[in-house]
């Protein structure tokens, strides 16, 4: 009986008795969720255009952040370093298309998936070779990102909002809106969906696969760079960042692999669910549930909606 009380009653009593803590937890979850959304978005872009789960998205985040910080360490001003990093991500997209995707046109998806593993280890090696393996500090201040926190009085307590988190939320939202517009409203967007559906049909109407792939990988690279800056500013820039990319998996399962809005909603659900679960239910299990709760949420979701919240429902004829 006592256990049931602890699971079903006590957490809600706590929420009600300390609303400031609840709001703080919700906010933390929301910010984490927005960043998960960003990572998931990188996956969605490439999945939409090529039907391939890009395993290298996580390492692209690290690689972009390392390049930015590394260039700055060599005495290049922050904004110039940012521009150069964007150029590097474009170069990466071109090279990936030329060396990896083009020779594998019309191959089964699993082959391309395996190729992204290769890309992952290549980028890890290249990153360590050029920038070294030790963690670096993100140049958030030099890029003009705000520091410090805003404390808001709330229900007899304080809710503390980190300015960097607010900036992250705003920038991510803008980025998502821009990408959604780009892919819904332009001919490139239509071409991109076409390529995802059928390579040969896309070729037959004159869509250039090369061009589309470069655009999509570049977009994914920009998303990776943004994610790298935001995560880097909250902790540090190291190869450990790659692990958080795996958090995108439950987000994608929840939101659907092909949906940009899905990536956002999924990210927020996972982020908030994680923090709330950790804070109110975590102590029951001796804490640390944050690391796996996301996967449990995703698993439960799979049982109900295998295609995700916004995924395309496939009707298979038999």
């Amino acid at each position: 009986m006592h256990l049931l009380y602890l699971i079903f009653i006590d957490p809600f009593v706590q929420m009600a008795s300390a609303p400031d803590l609840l709001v703080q937890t919700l906010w933390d979850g929301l910010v984490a969720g927005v960043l998960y959304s960003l990572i998931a978005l990188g996956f969605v872009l490439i999945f939409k255009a090529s039907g391939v789960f890009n395993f290298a998205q996580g390492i692209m985040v690290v690689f972009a952040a390392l390049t930015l910080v590394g260039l700055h360490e060599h005495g290049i001003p922050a904004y110039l370093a940012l521009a150069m990093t964007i150029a590097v991500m474009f170069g990466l997209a071109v090279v990936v298309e030329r060396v990896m995707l083009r020779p594998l046109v019309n191959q089964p998806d699993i082959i391309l998936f395996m190729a992204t593993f290769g890309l992952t280890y290549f980028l890890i090696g290249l990153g360590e070779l050029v920038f070294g393996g030790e963690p670096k500090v993100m140049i958030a201040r030099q890029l003009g990102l705000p520091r410090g926190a805003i404390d808001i009085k709330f229900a007899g307590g304080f809710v503390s909002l980190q300015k960097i988190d607010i900036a992250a939320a705003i920038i991510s939202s803008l980025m998502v809106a821009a990408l959604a517009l780009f892919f819904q409203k332009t001919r490139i967007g239509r071409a991109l969906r076409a390529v995802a559906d059928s390579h040969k049909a896309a070729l037959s109407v004159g869509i250039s696969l090369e061009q589309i792939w470069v655009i999509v990988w570049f977009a994914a690279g920009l998303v990776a760079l943004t994610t790298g800056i935001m995560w880097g500013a909250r902790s540090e820039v190291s190869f450990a960042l790659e692990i958080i990319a795996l958090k995108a998996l439950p987000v994608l399962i929840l939101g659907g692999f092909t949906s940009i809005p899905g990536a956002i909603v999924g990210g927020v659900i996972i982020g908030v669910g994680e923090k709330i679960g950790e804070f109110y239910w975590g102590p029951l299990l001796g804490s640390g549930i944050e690391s796996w709760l996301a996967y449990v949420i995703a698993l439960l979701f799979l049982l109900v909606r295998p295609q995700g919240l916004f995924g395309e429902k496939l009707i298979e004829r038999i």
Partner: protein
Amino acid sequence: MRSPSGPGVAAGEVLLAVENVSLAFGGVKAVSDVSFDIRKGEIRAIIGPNGAGKTSMLNIINGFYQPQQGAITFKGETRAKMRPHDAADGGIARTFQNVALFRGMTALDNIMAGRTLKMHKNLFWQLLRYGPAMAEEVEHRRFVEDIIEFLKIQEIRRTPVGRLPYGLQKRVELGRALAMEPELLLLDEPMAGMNLEEKEDMSRFVLDVNDHFGTTIALIEHDMGVVMDLSDRVVVLDHGVKIADGTPDEVKSNQAVIDAYLGVAH
């Protein structure tokens, strides 16, 4: 709808010439030393038993395969190598044997995708859906609506094509090819798997496209009745080799063709 106007090639002249083309996959010869031509404005059928190399021939013409030998002359330009993108840009459109549509997209979006190469306006304007890009989108949409009306598929405009019955999918695919305003339209078994009524509809569309827009058509078909009714000239392939070329009547009475289809007593 406008009719596509090809520069340089008048009706009745050779639009596309295939000269001594060979294609092999490893040891398998798909096409051996085949030559034929397609004249502007005609309906040209490519027939032959299964495995004769018909689809390979279409794939060579629109750049999916590169022949190991021979040359292709299109609108007076001879080329050895061409990518599908260039073929589409040059005015060659096609449909596929097993229907290759963008399954997740609506019929309308599928056909709009055929306009890809005709859209040139700045991406920035497209993003804002404003100014010149909006005008362009409206213009293309009008063109596509004409095609939809022509093919009588108004009521399925907004349906994702994956849910449509096979016959309608084939029609949408034809619509997408027409949206490219092609000079040469390649149809790979447009009536395969259709019932009699659907076949009659499709035959009428093929004839109408040829009549109204003057589009040159090359088609692969197994239904001999359809081939004889539709086509101006027929080329017959068997095991990758050309065995006959001429009007439907000539081909029908050709002994080599009869042997290829019915088999020869040994």
